[in-house]
């Protein structure tokens, strides 16, 4: 039973991790919270549903969700961020809030406000490992998350684009002086972030075999909490905080009841932030690059 809940918690945590990484890719580089990410996640879920409904294999559904998320994110960057990049940070944040409301509205009009559900046969079977079972879908979520995180880690750490992203995050002015083209990079960061959100949406909607246009707000808010708990100046904080929050949530529901779920999850967030205001992996402020 406990082991079973651990697996459930890790599965949920994996999705939070992906979504938190999506938030922190943009946050780390631009210092703005792209609120539309929560709705990219929701749209990703619908794309995943549509693909599975059309009898496409799961990897295709995942890639479709990622491409959808990346493309919408690119539009948001072009229309909602780039024209406002010299405005105070709250302005582009509000424009992303506007986009998130529009996206939710589009989803309600396209797919209705009632939850959509997948018939049971899509859920896949259960795999038996000794004394616990894991759903094939759960395993898929975990494996896909590990793969995606590895790809992002590789891009950020080892490639020329990733280094340029980090340089812009640490000192935008100097990075530009070195010939880094900040505009192209910002677009790339938005698209990478959007594709992660889309992937997370596909994974969670297929995992629960259900989706509503309102899923983005609830899960998105938790992902923001995960990012902050992990330390918003360090994008890898999400890798620790995601599973932690996922486990806390599932354990609470299993042993305490779902009525106190959010109380425990957000209480834990506040507690961690009181003890470590910079987040679990966050560095001190002085470690950050000078922003001129």
């Amino acid at each position, binding site marked *: 039973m406990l082991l079973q809940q651990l697996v459930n918690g890790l599965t949920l945590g994996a999705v939070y991790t992906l979504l938190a990484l999506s938030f922190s890719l943009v946050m780390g580089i631009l210092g703005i919270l792209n609120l539309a990410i929560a709705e990219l996640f929701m749209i990703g879920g619908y794309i995943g549903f549509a693909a599975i409904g059309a009898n496409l294999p799961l990897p295709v559904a995942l890639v479709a969700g990622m491409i959808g998320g990346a493309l919408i994110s690119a539009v948001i960057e072009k229309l909602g961020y780039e024209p406002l990049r010299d405005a105070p940070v709250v302005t582009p944040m509000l424009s992303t809030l506007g986009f998130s409301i529009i996206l939710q509205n589009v989803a309600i009009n396209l797919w209705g406000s009632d939850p959509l559900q997948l018939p049971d046969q899509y859920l896949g079977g259960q795999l038996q490992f000794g004394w616990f079972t894991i759903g094939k879908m759960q395993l898929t979520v975990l494996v896909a998350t590990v793969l995606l995180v590895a790809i992002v880690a590789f891009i950020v750490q080892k490639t020329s684009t990733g280094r340029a992203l980090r340089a812009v995050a640490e000192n935008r002015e100097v990075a530009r002086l070195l010939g*880094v083209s900040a505009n192209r990079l910002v677009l790339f960061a938005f698209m990478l972030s959007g594709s992660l959100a889309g992937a997370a949406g596909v994974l969670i909607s297929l995992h629960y075999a259900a989706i509503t246009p309102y899923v983005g707000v609830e899960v998105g808010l938790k992902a923001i909490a995960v990012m902050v708990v992990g330390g918003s100046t360090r994008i890898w904080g999400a890798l620790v905080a995601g599973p932690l929050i996922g486990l806390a949530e599932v354990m609470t529901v299993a042993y305490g009841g779902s009525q106190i779920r959010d109380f425990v999850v957000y209480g834990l967030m506040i507690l961690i932030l009181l003890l470590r205001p910079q987040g679990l992996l966050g560095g001190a402020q002085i470690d950050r690059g000078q922003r001129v």
Partner: protein
Amino acid sequence: MKDWLLQLQKVSKIFGGIHALSEVSCTVPRGEIVGIIGPNGAGKTTLFNVITGAYLADSGNVLLDDQFVTNWAPYRIVRSGIARTFQNIRLFPSMTVWEHLLVAQQHSGSIFRRLLPTAWADPAACERAEEVLDFFDLTAVRDREARSLPYGIQRRVEMARAVTMKPKLLLLDEPVAGMNQEEAENIRQLMLRLRETGLAILLIEHDMNFVMNLCSYLYVLDFGILIAEGSPTEVRNNPVVLDAYLGQDADA
């Protein structure tokens, strides 16, 4: 006529009615080290900011290799061959020395090439970084994060990052500020070796003694005005210069 690399023609910069630079003209010949000295607040760093495009000049011209680069975007000026360091070191704190040298080499490769590991995608950049690492004697700290390095080494990393871009002209803003004798001498030797590679250097310095045996020519700036120029010996014996420096000391 001499082979000028950089020419400034009557460059002026005004901040809210204050003349930070008034019709400053100066030149840097190819392959030489030229110094700009002057008391604090004389406009030395402002001059660097105008040359690199960080500030827009209100009048006057900047020419590199006989090409007008006045008020170009900073990245275009960098690409045309002027690299700089800063008075207060500006590194990327959590990036390693090696990464600093790679990030300074932004070639306009395709997006796919730029998403491959740099060692495969751009061996030339790695080779260049290796070469500079060796020149600046930074091989031992190659994989250390910039913030964990001692001050003197951070200065060398910043110079190395600028040199990696293969500039024609290197602008150094008080490269030995806050250093002890030994560290300063180390930087001086580096500059001499850089000159041997054919690089021209324009150096801002507060301390007149440091530039004496280093620069082939000196400009003296005070309140945004060029008050003297000449060989180091000429400048040292120029009563106007002594006045500017002594006057400042008397005030301090």
